[in-house]
């Protein structure tokens, strides 16, 4: 297990538990009561730690190396899934995955950012930072969904769109802008979940939908706390402050009315019990698509555009 800084009290408890279990295995002393006590203490400590997370701690949790990514949910939620590749223009981006799926009789087109689970795969997936072809692949799949009247499910988990030389040559800005434009008018329901990091244009590039939810230990912001710190504080050391200032937690985002709700994670975060997380997510998303299937297509688009047109806070002055 990997413990984050603020999870240190847990690490000690788990070490004690392990030792007790060793003693138990030898079988000379009955320690079952101690084990039970310790386990309940662990639960209590977890509740304490996780009920009061700061913005920066949520950022850390969203990047937990054992946190489940898009493909994990795809494998654990759907009865059937066929991955589709390529944007038909340049290449197949590895940082955005997508395909056609089915749960029971609910068919879906799924798109999502994908990070790697080990060093080699992290590089292969470009750390979840998509190039223009990733956004164009996602758009191609959404167009298939539209043509065959299949709703779209989007999983967001990216530290940002890739700021590379080739990405600029191939029009990173245009690719994201085009997705926003097309997703506004897509004739099928779109439901988005922030399952990890939701950084900037890279996130919203597949994140415009009829309903947007965030998992409990995730963040969504115009910029990552690190970059914000380096620009506004002119140093990398103020990331904690930046994370607070940016108001990037699901609770803040829900308070602002920018997202529709927060999906609760199992105790200790999604990485503690990915299977349970998948089940929670499965129930949640099925409910959304069921509700949205009752909305007429034109109303759906009108409401979607209205939803985004009304976001923004400003003062009206008379002059």
């Amino acid at each position, binding site marked *: 297990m990997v413990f984050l800084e603020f999870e240190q009290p847990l690490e000690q408890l788990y070490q004690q538990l392990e030792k007790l279990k060793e003693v138990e295995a030898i079988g000379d002393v009955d320690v079952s009561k101690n084990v039970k006590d310790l386990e309940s203490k662990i639960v209590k400590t977890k509740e304490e730690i996780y009920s009061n997370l700061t913005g920066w701690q949520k950022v850390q949790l969203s990047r937990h190396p054992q946190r489940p990514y898009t493909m994990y949910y795809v494998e654990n939620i759907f009865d059937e899934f066929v991955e589709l590749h390529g944007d038909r223009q340049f290449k197949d981006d590895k940082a955005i995955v997508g395909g056609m799926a089915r749960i029971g009789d609910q068919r879906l087109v799924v798109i999502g950012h994908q990070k790697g689970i080990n060093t080699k795969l992290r590089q292969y997936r470009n750390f979840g930072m998509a190039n223009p072809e990733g956004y164009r692949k996602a758009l191609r799949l959404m167009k298939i969904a539209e043509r065959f009247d299949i709703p779209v499910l989007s999983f967001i988990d990216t530290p940002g*769109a*890739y*700021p*590379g*030389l080739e*990405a*600029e*040559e*191939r*029009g*990173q*800005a*245009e690719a*994201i*802008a*085009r997705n*926003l*434009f*097309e997703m*506004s*008018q897509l004739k099928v329901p779109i439901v988005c979940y922030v399952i990890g990091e939701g950084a*900037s*244009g890279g996130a*919203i*590039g597949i994140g*415009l939908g009829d309903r947007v939810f965030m998992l409990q230990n995730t963040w*969504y*912001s*115009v*910029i990552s706390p690190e970059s*914000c710190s380096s*620009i*506004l*504080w002119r140093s990398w050391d*103020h990331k904690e*402050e*930046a994370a607070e*200032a*940016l*108001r*990037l937690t699901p609770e*803040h*985002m829900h308070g*602002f009315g*920018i997202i529709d709700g927060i999906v609760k994670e199992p105790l200790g975060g999604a990485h503690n019990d990915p299977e349970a997380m998948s089940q929670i997510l499965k129930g949640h998303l099925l409910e959304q698509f069921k509700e949205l299937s009752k909305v007429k297509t034109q109303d759906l688009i009108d409401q*979607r*555009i209205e939803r*985004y*047109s009304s*976001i*923004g*806070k*400003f*003062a*009206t*002055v*008379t*002059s």
Partner: protein
Amino acid sequence: MRLRRYGHLSLPPFGRKPDPLSKDLSAKTSKKIARLDLNANFGIPYIPILKQTQSMGWFKRLKDGIQTATKYKKETPDGLWYKCKSCDHLQTTKELAANLHKCVSCDYHTRLSSAQYFEILFDEGHQELFSDIESTDIMDFVDLKPYTERLEAAKAKTSLKDAMAVAQGQVNGKSLVVAAMDFVFIGGSMGSVVGEKIARSIKYCIKERIPLMIISKSGGARMMESAFSLMQMAKTSALLSRMAEHKVPYFSFLTDPTTGGVSASYAMLGDINFSEPGALIGFAGPRVIKETIKRDLPEGFQTSEFLLEHGFLDFIVNRSDLKERVSKMIGLFGF
């Protein structure tokens, strides 16, 4: 004990057994003398070894710094001269202004304000729209300075209300709504006000059936409004899709610089996208890209010429031809 000096060396006297103490002493002394020797100058003048790049000065400055007292200095008022950033050509600001704020020598296009673009584009007299909204501090944002202070400072410095101004007027007799950004206002950053001004302009243009031109000039989304800024990308793009539905033309004019959330939303979504020569246009800034790929960027990377070459612009227009070209485009779109 006595030490005799022989030349620069000091040795114990002959015929005597050197005792350990004297040996020590002599060693110390000889070291001392050796050190002295190194510094000795033997009557030869000291000549420092000069690198070839250095040259020897014939005159020596006795006092440091410039000696002219302030009261004897000749005063040149600020803002009379302009030195071109591209070719270093020195010209008066009058000459520069007469040339539509382009360098008289190399045609370098300097950055303009929204008011200056209105001046260039509209026939005469235009009406400002939606000037009744201002930014507020939504989330008590504090970095090195509170956002409210930054806003106040920007307003005081620029006498603008936010990073965008919208105006309606005639271009060679044809109606046009122009929404232009001001880079001097917090880096032309897009927050709720910029988003709302664009939203209102779009709705207005749909209703009145007038083409819309947005002049982008921005570093990207405004960080101090965090997620609200990010959502302006979705807001503007969603409404532009509505405008396309109603078949009202949208001209996107990308000027130096157009990056970040602005380029990744409305700036790239024009029915036609065009730009001025030499403008910086891109998603990520050049510094970030350089840090990411750890290589130098090629010459002309992310300039408007580069974007034209890669198929993201329809044309590049010199400022002198801007009005003519825009008026021609309005006509060709049937408005």
